[in-house]
């Protein structure tokens, strides 16, 4: 049997993260969970342990607090040694209308989805580069492919994240560390529970399967489900002169 993989998940209470962790638990992986809500972290951890994870570790941290990142990663490194996969899954959609009026809220959206990820990803990169292996998987979004009136603050933060990941991938490539950008479309999770689900909405376990495949196949940018790639291609190529008039 191949060696058990170790995966570290940031934002472990996210629905997409849980579904992904279950797939790895079934193969007996060692799973390290980081989340800010201790009770829910416990529930996720129990689930994964029962489903077959060989070991589950729990770390409680609010990942928006960038000043804690270095210490957090140092502690995790000390505890697990090296890891095969890091999954960055935390994020917030926020409320676009509120963000237009209230900069604190807009700033939260940017901080959570983009700025804090910059800090965290650099700390993780240093850790992974030290062993010259590993895959860093990050949940960005199709929302970052083009700004739309309905969620452009969130979209801009995700766009920033996507570009950041391109650069990071480029930088880490020669050092043997892979970076995978995941761009899900609408997924049925707490983040979107207040929104009406259209035909294109997907369940988290499908996204999870896509993530595991992307890791196996060593992909760099993945739309999930795959049909979002042609859809976003079209959306990206609508001339701005037309796009600005659309109600999206």
């Amino acid at each position, binding site marked *: 049997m191949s060696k058990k993989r170790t995966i570290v998940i940031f934002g472990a209470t996210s629905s997409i993260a849980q579904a992904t962790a279950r797939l790895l638990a079934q193969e007996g992986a060692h799973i390290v969970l980081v989340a800010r809500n201790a009770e829910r972290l416990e529930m996720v951890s129990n689930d994964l342990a029962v489903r077959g994870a060989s070991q589950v570790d729990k770390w409680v941290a609010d990942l928006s607090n960038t000043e804690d990142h270095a210490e957090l990663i140092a502690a995790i490194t000390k505890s697990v040694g090296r890891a095969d996969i890091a999954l960055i899954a935390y994020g917030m959609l926020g409320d676009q209308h509120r963000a237009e009026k209230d900069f604190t809220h807009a700033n939260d959206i940017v901080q959570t989805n983009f700025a804090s990820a910059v800090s965290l990803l650099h700390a993780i990169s240093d850790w992974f580069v030290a062993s010259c292996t590993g895959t860093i998987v990050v949940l960005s979004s199709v929302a970052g492919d083009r700004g739309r009136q309905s969620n452009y603050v969130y979209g801009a933060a995700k766009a920033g994240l996507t570009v950041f990941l391109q650069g990071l991938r480029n930088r880490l490539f020669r050092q043997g560390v892979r970076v995978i950008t995941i761009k899900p479309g609408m997924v049925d999770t707490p983040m979107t529970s207040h929104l009406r*689900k259209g035909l294109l909405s997907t369940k988290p376990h499908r996204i999870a399967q896509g993530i595991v495949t992307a890791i196996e196949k060593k992909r760099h940018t993945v739309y999930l489900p795959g049909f979002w790639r042609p859809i976003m291609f079209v959306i990206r190529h609508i001339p701005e002169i037309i796009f600005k008039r659309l109600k999206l």
Partner: protein
Amino acid sequence: MSTETYNSWGRYFNYSHRVVPVYWTDDTLFTQAESEKLSVLPFGYGRSYGDLCLNDHGILLVTNNLDRLRTFDRENGILQCEAGVSLETILNFSVPRGWFLPVTPGTKFVTVGGAIANDVHGKNHHKSGTFGRYVKRFELVRSDGKPIICSAEQHSDLFRATIGGLGLTGLITWAEIQLKPITSSLIDCETIRFANLEEFFHLSETSDKEFEYTVAWIDCLATRDSLGRGIFIRGNHLHCTPPRYTTDSNSLSLTIPCNAPEFLLNSLSIKLFNAFYYHRQRRKQVRRHQHYGAFFYPLDKIGAWNRLYGKRGFFQYQLVLPNSHARAIRLILETVADSRLPASLAVLKQFGDIEASGLMSFPIPGITLSLDFANYGQKTFELFQQLDAVVVEHGGRIYPAKDAQMSAQIFQQSYPAWREFKDFVDPLFSSSFWRRVTPSP
């Protein structure tokens, strides 16, 4: 909170609901209900046929995301899981570890919460009783306070009211279930053709001692001397040393993509199907080893088969008659034959004497019959009302999980415990079913 149309398995009722998805056992559940003065009802996988899992213009607490396992005692087969975990998830997890569901309905696409709330039964009722007997404890969240742990020892009255409690006593967030050991994923089963009702009663009596699982399919279009002819199915878990567990080779193979046209299921096609099914088995008795999936869940192989009945939907009518009046099944079958409405599926099963664990559980010692009917409009309801009268006259009752029409009077007469039960109903909880069978004066 979004507003969406939800229907149940029969697809006859299409009600608009406010939807509150439940993601965590510690979610706050009642904020909207209190501010908007609406009632709430838990909703599992909506595998109930009628309006039991619906709450017209109220709130549905949708539980399918409460899908975490909590603890598993490998030695003793005790699983603690959240209430939205499906029986399918449990089987996928437990069978390779040598454990099986103590009781299972005819589909694995139901949640643990739904299985408790209807105190479901299976082909082993005569040996094992209902699902509720294997529930060791659960957590119940009511609108008026802290979560309560209920078991036979703790809050035992609420425990008994919640098993078979139709989702009205509060939200079950997690439950602990006793599984049973197996050494193989196969069932050693036999199918036997029988020519009429008398032969059924005889087969059932002799089989129920030696076989853990028994059930009969009936050709409900046969009349007179052949009335009640069918195929008897009986089986036991196969014993293997060393244990051997395999996955079902033919899992979901087909999904019905949209509503079928109404003419698809007409009396001719139903007649042909029933005759074919009866005569397909050439020898009187056939024995084979079948995967548990094929044995327990043949219909699960066709996704959304309820669409075959078209957009008007369909009904299942399930009754039980006490042993003392078991022979009145003949009267029921004759009433159906006289109505000339073709039942597309009919299943007969002898219930055992084990007392159900819930105050409102459906099973009583006796014989149960379920009949599927397409929606033929008013005639269908007229037939059901005729049947209701026969059932109640003979001391029987109708299964709420399947019901779409029984009157308040029929319900209250056949479930006298409802008076005691109503004191356990959470004041914030209600359902379309409950309002129908206990209308406020």
